[in-house]
């Protein structure tokens, strides 16, 4: 185990995989000489050379397409798209090519491509550079989308993504890069499509991924301390495939759930989770599933407005308390019901 940042974990894993497998190469804007906009690729050009760390023009569709081709021919390219916002320029390559080729051409070739890209707001980067549009990719069969929330998961899921034979969108988050955590020293990849119960609890299930999984965990710890609420936290880790079993098993246990997400509410990831719960745990629900998401606005630049629009720990805690209020929860043993009869 080593304590390190999320950024370091991604860096070290890329480095280790490039050392392990000569077919692994990096493609992206400013990843070589500049060492990446978020310094993920620091030192890698020096170690592996221009052939395996390719700086590209500002042309996402072009270099993503080049990576798809490289993957089809047997390499294991890891594309860095500076932020997920710019992936929109490469939508056609990702959705119509990377995700389709294996199925459309009878399995003649798989596409072992990884697209690393950070999402998230809160950095005052404006509405076009602060989005959470991983849903676009999680929507598409043929794609895999993973969204680690911790340095350890960043390592384990990046290992899995690089070694997977299908295109994987590896979602990072600007707000997570400097978070720290223990990272195992061994190179055991995670199983893509497996959520994690990051805190076991009995009263309510909080479900999130990426940054909001860490928010959920923080809120759970706070509520345990301040209110005595025993929150179970599910970190999805993978948006496609989605680990419906873990979600359903948790809600079947707790009877109520709040889904937290950094994207917009309407049609968001949370809607899919809520539907999953309704399908699998309907007879176990004691309250409607609540969702906490970003305000339905283009994210403002002004700091107070940006902060107000993003879901906060306060918002999550409130949704948890309101849901538990609705089922008459109170700390400790179940309280006596209201027996007062007014006369």
């Amino acid at each position, binding site marked *: 185990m080593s304590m390190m940042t999320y950024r370091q974990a991604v860096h070290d894993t890329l480095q280790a995989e490039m050392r392990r497998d000569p077919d692994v190469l990096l493609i992206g804007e400013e990843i070589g000489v500049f060492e990446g906009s978020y310094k993920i690729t620091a030192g890698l050009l020096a170690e592996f050379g221009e052939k395996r760390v390719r700086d590209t023009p500002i042309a996402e569709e072009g270099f993503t397409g080049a990576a798809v081709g490289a993957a089809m021919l047997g390499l294991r390219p890891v594309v860095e798209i500076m932020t997920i916002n710019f992936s929109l320029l490469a939508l056609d390559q990702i959705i119509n090519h990377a995700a389709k080729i294996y199925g459309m051409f009878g399995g003649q070739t798989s596409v072992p491509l990884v697209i690393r890209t950070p999402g998230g707001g809160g950095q005052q980067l404006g509405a076009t550079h602060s989005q959470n549009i991983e849903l676009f990719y999680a929507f598409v069969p043929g794609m895999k989308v993973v969204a680690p929330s911790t340095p350890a998961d960043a390592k384990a899921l990046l290992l899995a993504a690089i070694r997977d034979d299908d295109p994987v969108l590896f979602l990072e988050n600007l707000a997570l890069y400097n978070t720290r955590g223990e990272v195992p020293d061994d190179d055991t990849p995670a199983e893509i499509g497996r959520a994690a119960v990051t805190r076991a609890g009995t009263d309510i299930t909080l479900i999130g991924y990426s940054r909001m999984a860490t928010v959920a965990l923080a809120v759970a710890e706070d509520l345990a301390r301040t209110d005595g609420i025993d929150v179970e936290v599910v970190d999805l880790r993978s948006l496609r495939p989605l680990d419906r079993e873990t979600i359903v098993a948790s809600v079947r246990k707790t*009877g109520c759930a709040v889904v937290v997400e950094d994207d*917009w*509410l*309407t049609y968001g990831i949370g809607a899919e989770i809520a539907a999953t719960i309704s*399908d699998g745990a*309907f*007879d*176990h*629900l*004691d*309250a*409607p599933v*609540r*969702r*906490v*998401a*970003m*305000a*339905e*606005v283009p994210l403002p630049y002004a700091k107070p407005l940006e902060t*107000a*629009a993003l*879901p906060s720990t306060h*918002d999550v805690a*409130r*949704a948890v308390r*309101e849901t538990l209020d*609705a*089922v*008459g*929860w109170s700390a400790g043993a*179940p*309280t*006596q*019901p*209201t027996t*007062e*009869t*007014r*006369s």
Partner: protein
Amino acid sequence: MIEIRMPRLSDTMEEGTITSWTATVGSTVTAGDVLVEIETDKAVMEQEAFESGTLTHIVVPAGETARIGEVIAVLDGPDDLETPAQKGSSAAEELRGDAPGDDAPDSRLDDTPPAPPAAGSDATRADTSAAQPGDDAVPDDVDGPAGRAPGDGPRLTSSPLVRRLAREHGVDLSSVRGTGPGGRIVRRDLEAALDDGTARQLSDDTSPHPLADADQRRTAGGPSAQTTAPADPTSRSAGAADLARGSVEHPTTAAQRISAERLTQSTSTVPQFSVTATADVTDLVALRSTLVAELVAAGRAKVSMNDLVVRACALALRAHPDVNASYEAGPEGPVLLRHERVNIGVAVATDHGLVVPVVRDADTLPVSGVHDAVAGLAAAAHARRLTVAQMQGGTFTVSNLGMLGVEHFRAIVNPPEAAILAVGAVRQEPAVVDGAVVVRDRMTLTVSVDHRAVDGAGAAAFLQTLVGLLERPWAIVG
């Protein structure tokens, strides 16, 4: 503002069904006026207004059921200065728990769901409660019985978890008080009701339960049919399947349900046995003929065989106080209550179910008095006008199917009474009298008893006395 609440009209009453509203919304009510008719577990009773005012709001419409203490209507008192409309709405708010300090929301009367949790300055926050009208503000048919229009009266809502648990425990959710948003029954409410014993079991009837109804619809149409399908093949699902063969569901009355529950209780908790004897009632038949002729001549009502049997029972019970008893729980363990009074319940079959009005102090009444009492009670029973008092306090029951040609049957003890008499038909049979075969009128009598209160010898002795009275009937009218 004056809240009219569901009154407690009998000791065993838990809820009442509004049969009809005598007063209409907007009408002026004077104290003492009949407001509403309420069907309890025992009877349909009229309820008077205790105060004068204007009826502004009928909370529980006819056909609906409310638990004791629940508000069923709202009157505007003479002191109220606000208009009825204003008052009505504020009453509704208070009743659904929006009013400050009101911690016992009762939103069964809540046609409009409560506002969502305050969004305040976070109005743009895209959590579910702000982005939508509120998680409680679901359309009626989402969480409640489908097909009911808003304003069609109060409805029960409950969480899916509660509906599953209720199915598993066989609980009638209308007996559970909901404390969740909009009065929704949540798991805690069900657990509390099971813990304190107020959760009523669903009897094996076909009462149209709004929740069962909603489940039916889901089961029929939803993808979750497998998970919601009741496991019990005798449940309504099976009944619904029978619709194709022409079975038709009829709602049960409160009286039918309470009768079913008590019979179930009797057969499952009271150890019973019965003893049977045949009485030679030739002389009784002759006596009755004489009596009837006299009574008709005098312009009075005829007495029936049953009146004579009831009178005979009363006398026999006075001679056997051990049978006129109850085995009941006492503060320091079970006790045997010997009743000083002889109050005989008479089973009356009506088109709305079996009822058992009680002839009080039957041992002190002459046969004509028994007749008058029974006839009056039976008429009230058929008109559904029996009062609770008229059905309480029985110490023994007579059930007579003789007029329907039944030779012999065994009745189920009516707790807490210790014994019940089943009376068969009078029939002419060959009998041996003084060594010769002759035709005699005979009647078979079966006494079922609670073995905890009465043993075999006691039951036999009582029956022997009864047979003796019927065979030498002058004592009955003496």
